């Protein structure tokens, strides 16, 4: 018996992590008491507040794991974990910097040029430079290797042409990391010949237009690249190895607290209304939510601990995302026992707005960053069924 029994070890939490948590909590409590931000459901995808991002930068809470010379603090991934989960738990508006801090910064660190590291990383860490992901396309969703965006080699650089879809927040980002085909797919080797580029969004030939989602929010974008020139040193990593880069980042991307906390703030506000007088059914519902969130967090921290110790827990990470995203959807349904979801958002009642926004945003949870069908496929492969 070993193949399908997974281990989720406890991460090593030293005093500095406890201190950091209480520092972040104190700061957030003060921000909330002084109404400096409005709590947002799905805040890491829907809550944009550039001032707030800058404030986190000033606090030194962005890019914390990066080398000091690039604006980081050389703290552990667990320090970052604690910061991000505290922010998510209060629905803080963290979308603007989220991708840059989680993904693009680390990508630049591992695959970028020295110039990029010097010029861009300190600005990300300061909460002033934001990134969007250029992965999906009109014809390429779950089947990402079928992207049609081309990068053609020209004198001194590359010329990118194509359309990227669903890139969140591109309207306020300075950069997009764009996955493009740099050579034709060979039979049976379609994952080769893909390359990631760093593209400044103010480049000539870039046109971005917003797409409204069913909740009414305009955070998605369609980004057109019409013969956009980028110099040779915009290539992230090696030409043709973009796929490997993207898949190697996935364990980190899939197992974080944003995969089960997107709607947690709604639980808090439902409790604010009802906690002094819960009936038995409500007590059971909220108790069940707490129990599941604790279990998911134990899993997610377990994956973080495995990553810290140099392992690659891809299957475990896929499990966290599959279970976690379904859970954060389920939270909304269960909380209907506290309050019916009746009204269009914007009536000024915090709980009503959070409930409505959560319900209307939750279909995206099990799609973004790899659909749950794709995730189950990863699990099936991991246990030898594929």
């Amino acid at each position, binding site marked *: 018996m070993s193949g399908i*029994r997974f281990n989720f070890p406890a991460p090593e939490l030293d005093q500095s992590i406890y201190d950091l948590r209480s520092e972040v909590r104190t700061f957030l409590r003060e921000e909330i008491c002084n109404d400096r931000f409005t709590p947002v459901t799905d805040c890491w995808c829907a809550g944009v507040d550039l001032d707030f991002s800058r404030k986190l930068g000033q606090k030194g809470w962005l890019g914390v794991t990066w080398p000091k010379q690039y604006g980081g603090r050389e703290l552990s991934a667990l320090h970052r974990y604690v910061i991000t989960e505290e922010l998510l738990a209060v629905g803080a508006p963290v979308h603007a910097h989220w991708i840059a801090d989680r993904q693009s910064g680390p990508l630049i660190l591992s695959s970028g040029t020295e110039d990029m590291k010097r010029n861009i990383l300190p600005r990300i860490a300061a909460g002033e430079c934001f990134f969007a992901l250029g992965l999906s396309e009109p014809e390429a969703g779950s089947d990402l290797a079928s992207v049609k965006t081309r990068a053609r080699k020209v004198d001194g650089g590359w010329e990118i042409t194509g359309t990227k879809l669903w890139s969140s927040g591109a309207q306020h980002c300075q950069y997009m990391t764009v996955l493009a085909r740099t050579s034709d797919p060979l039979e049976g080797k379609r994952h080769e010949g893909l390359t990631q580029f760093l593209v400044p969004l103010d480049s000539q030939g870039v046109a971005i237009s917003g797409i409204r989602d069913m909740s009414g929010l305009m955070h998605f974008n369609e980004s057109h690249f019409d013969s956009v020139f980028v110099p040779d040193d915009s290539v992230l990593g090696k030409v043709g190895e973009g796929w490997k880069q993207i898949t190697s980042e996935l364990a980190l991307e899939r197992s974080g607290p944003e995969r089960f906390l997107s709607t947690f703030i709604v639980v808090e506000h439902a409790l604010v209304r009802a906690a*002094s007088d819960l009936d038995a059914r409500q007590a059971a519902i909220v108790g069940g939510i707490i129990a599941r969130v604790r279990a998911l967090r134990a899993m997610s921290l377990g994956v973080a601990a495995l990553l810290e110790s140099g392992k690659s827990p891809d299957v475990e990470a896929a499990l966290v995302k599959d279970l976690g995203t379904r859970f954060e959807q389920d939270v909304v349904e269960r909380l209907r026992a506290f309050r019916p979801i009746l009204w269009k958002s914007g009536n000024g009642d915090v709980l009503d707005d959070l409930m409505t926004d959560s319900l209307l945003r939750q279909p995206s949870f099990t799609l973004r960053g790899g659909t749950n069908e794709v995730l*189950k496929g990863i699990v099936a492969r991991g246990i030898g069924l594929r």
Partner: protein
Amino acid sequence: MNETDLLILDAAERLLSDICTTEAAVRYEQGQVPEDLANAILDSGLPLAWVPEEFGGVGGSLALGFELIRKAASFALPLPLAETLVANLLLAVSGLTVPGRWTALGYDGGELPVAVRGEVNGTIEMASGAHEASVIVVPVLEKGHLRVASFAPSTIDMEHRRNLAGEVRTRIILRSAIPSQLSGRIENLTEDGLRQFCALLRAVQIVGALDRVGELTLDYVAERKQFGRALGKFQAVQNRVADIVGETALAGAAVQQAVRTVSNAERPLRGDRSTAIAIASAKFVAGEAAQKVPENAHQAHGAMGFSYEYPLQHFTRRVWSWREEFGSEFYWSEYIGELIQDEVQSGHGDSVLGKAWDLATR
């Protein structure tokens, strides 16, 4: 766990895979105690894992004992190893003599019998392990304090029944019963703490059994062919197996976390709030998995999994029993909700906002 713990686990695994077949579970359900298996386990000293060395035990960690329990459940061990471990622990912490045979746990999470001037009165609806045991261990209340009593089986009224997994559960009626041993007050043991500890025991067993349900399913869908290919090649079936793996992993993570919390607690049987919430969560999540995992496993197995012959059903019936014992999902989720309400009401203007997160991270 240290090196010795790992060696013990290794030996236990070998012992169980050699002689603990589901045939033993079948025989046990027909009323025959599998003597070879019983003697081998007693001889191995495993039931004494939680008994300190100075009382003749192994002196193993709580983590070791829970891992043994998980392992035993993954073999559907038809003997009260888990119950004996706890009963022996209770004897040891209360300074009573620990026998070398099976020991029954005369406790089911319900009301405790009451001791007055050395006589015990009360009813235990679902004692476990009482069929094989040479000693019945019963936690009792005297003037609001816990003591531990032990009885020789021949001296008390017992009515054996079987839970839906076929495990013996016994109604014990104590009428002015005189214990063969009665401890003094035990300060580091509370009724809440004991209930929680036993709930964790069942949660760990559920996860152990589910480990095996996943293994059986994976093997079955890899071998069974329909429409010209293995069932496991169909995406619909793969998704079910992935769900089995996921729910088991989730319950496993919750249980691991609860075991860590209990292991790190200064007084693990006192039932403080941080162990309470960890265990409540573990039993809740394990209880939910006890529904979801068998549902998917049986669907993947087709009619074969429904037959008595095939091993799956032993594990299914066990997790369906264990999820009810020492508090179901319904009990423990409400317990957590009430804990929140309680803290809010006694919070003296402390902000409610953040309470849920506080409990999620405590």
